[in-house]
Structures are given as C-alpha cells and as structure tokens.
C-alpha cells in the first residue's frame, strides 16, 4: 500500500485540478478565472514532483504561477474584466 501512496496522491491532486480547470473555463470574471488556472498549475506542479521530475517542477512553478498570471492579469486590465 505504501508504494501506491504517490500514485493515490497524484490521483487526488488530478481530481482537484479537473475541478479547477472546470471552474476556470466556466467563470465569467476573468480575474477569478486566472486564479483558478493558477490553482490548476499548482496541482500539476505537485503531480510532476510526485512523478519524480524536479527539474520540470522548478521550471513550471515560476512560469505558470508567476509569469503567466502576471501577463494574463495585465491583459485583463487592458481589456475587459467580465466576459459577455
């Protein structure tokens, strides 16, 4: 059972990421959608870590949680916050 623990944790995190993706697609408020997308990226980073790819985690964290939300929030600020 103990050797299945990473797989079970990855499965639980994958479920959370599916919910976050669904919320991000459905959300009308684009700022909240960006936050949900960052939550999904965090889940993916944890999955990469559990599957023993620390290099990918280290490149995925700053890009997907730092730089991508920054650019998306700037885009939202320069256009419109609420989707029609």
């Amino acid at each position: 059972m103990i050797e299945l623990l990473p797989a079970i944790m990855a499965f639980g995190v994958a479920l959370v990421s599916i919910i976050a993706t669904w919320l991000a697609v459905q959300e009308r408020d684009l700022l909240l959608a960006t936050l949900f997308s960052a939550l999904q990226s965090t889940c993916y980073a944890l999955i990469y870590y559990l599957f023993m790819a620390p290099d990918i985690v280290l490149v995925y964290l700053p890009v997907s949680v730092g730089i991508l939300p920054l650019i998306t929030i700037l885009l939202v600020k320069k256009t419109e916050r609420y989707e029609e």
Partner: protein
Amino acid sequence: MKLSDIIVGIAMALLAIMLSYLMVYGGLGPIASYNIRPLAVAFLNNTYNPWQKIYSALSPEAVTAIVWDYRGLDTYFETSVLFIAIVGLLALFRGANIVQGISSKGLSIIVKTSTKIIVPLILVAGASLAFHGHLSPGGGFQGGSFMTVATALLAVAFSIEFLQQKRLSLNTLLAIRCIGLLAIIIVSVYLLINAVLLGGYAYIFQNMQRLLFSPNSLVAVGISQYSMPYWFLDRPLGGILFFFNLSESIAVIGGLTLGAVLLLLRENELKAVIGGEERE
C-alpha cells in the same frame, strides 16, 4: 447548475480515474518500455564517470548534463527562439519609453514592505538554483525565471519608474540579455579557439576531452585533449555546465524582465508613441 454540467464533470472525473487505474496497474504497458531503458542506463553510467572522461560530462546532475552537454546545440537554439520572441516584442513597442507618470507611486505601504522582505529571498533562491544547476535539480532557465518573478514583483509593487531609477531602463535590460547570449557563444567556442591558437583539434560545445573522428569514416583517430575546468576547490564544476547556467540565467532575467516591463507600460502613454498621428 445544469444537468449537462454535472454530466461533463462526472465524465472528466471518470477519465481521470480510468487513466490512473491504467497507469498504476500497467494497463498501457510499463511506463518506460524496456527497449529504451538502456539509454537511461548509459546516461546514468556516463554522466559522472571520472574513469572514462571521453564519454562523461563530470557533473552529478544528469538532466543538466543532457541539456547543456549531450544536446547543447538544441538548447542554444531554444534560447535563441526566446530571444527572437523578445525582439518581436521590441519591434512592436519600438520608440516606447518609461515616462514619469501619474501613478508612479506604486501600491500601498503594506504591499511595499512585504515585497521588500520577500524579494531578496526569491533572488537568493533563484541564484542558488542557477549556480548549483550542475549539482542539484535546477539550472539556468529555472534560476533566471525565479529571479524574473522577483523583478516583476518589484515593478508591480513599486511601479516601473522605480526600476528606471535603479538604472534598469529598457536599454539596460536589453544589454543584459545580449551580454548573456554573448557569454553563451563565447563559452561554446572557447575550446575551439584554444585549439586553433595552440594547435590540435576540438569541437564546438566541447566539455571534456572527446574522441576525434576522421571526417570521412566513423573511425576514432585520436583524442582531443582540451577540456574545461571540471573541479573547483573541493567539488565538481561540470566544465561548461556551470558557465552555461550562469550566462543563461543572466540572459533569461534580462529578457523576461524586459518583456514584463514592456507589457506593464501604461496605455495612454503608449498610444502617443505608437499610434502617432492618425493616418488615412
């Protein structure tokens, strides 16, 4: 919530359950098939192998050794792709500059103080990732993007004029980027220039001593004796890996910060520069 939403959600959850079941119990076959495992064995045997320097990168970290030594040219062109993207952004924003604007005071004092505390921590973490990229997971791009998060935080919390007051204008950032790329080029041809000046043969992107092949056949005719320094004080240096990680982190922090600052420019000031007078 409509019925279709619930059905789609349940279907996606079922997909995740089925995929994890298949992966855990090997329904798709072993995750890495047995045919390609000798490749992994070869890399693990040769990455740090002081007894066979002609196949080795002399760095304990296999991923960095593959990225910057065994496939160094690929990584160089990846870096160039990022540079071309930055050049496209610059061409789009040509003539734009940081002007002292109305909202140049930045955010509130709480945000500023917490940013002051957290920025040095991020910078140190990124620098350690970049400088230890040949010893532990991490590397130039990872460390550079960590440090870019810190500078982007500074630009958001303190306003972009703060960066300009600290001598980090757009031209300086572009110069930092170009210095990093130039350092990569110099390191990659350093041994080649050495061989041309001192006699003998060497390859581009050469790290340790390598077998020399005759141009027309696949027969080894000798050994290129030139090699980068692979030992610093009491720990391995990984030859070119350390220098490549250093220059790549400099290039990435310059380029990505430049992109973030360009996107942070205020719209009404930009329109005056880019739009110019109304054509037509």
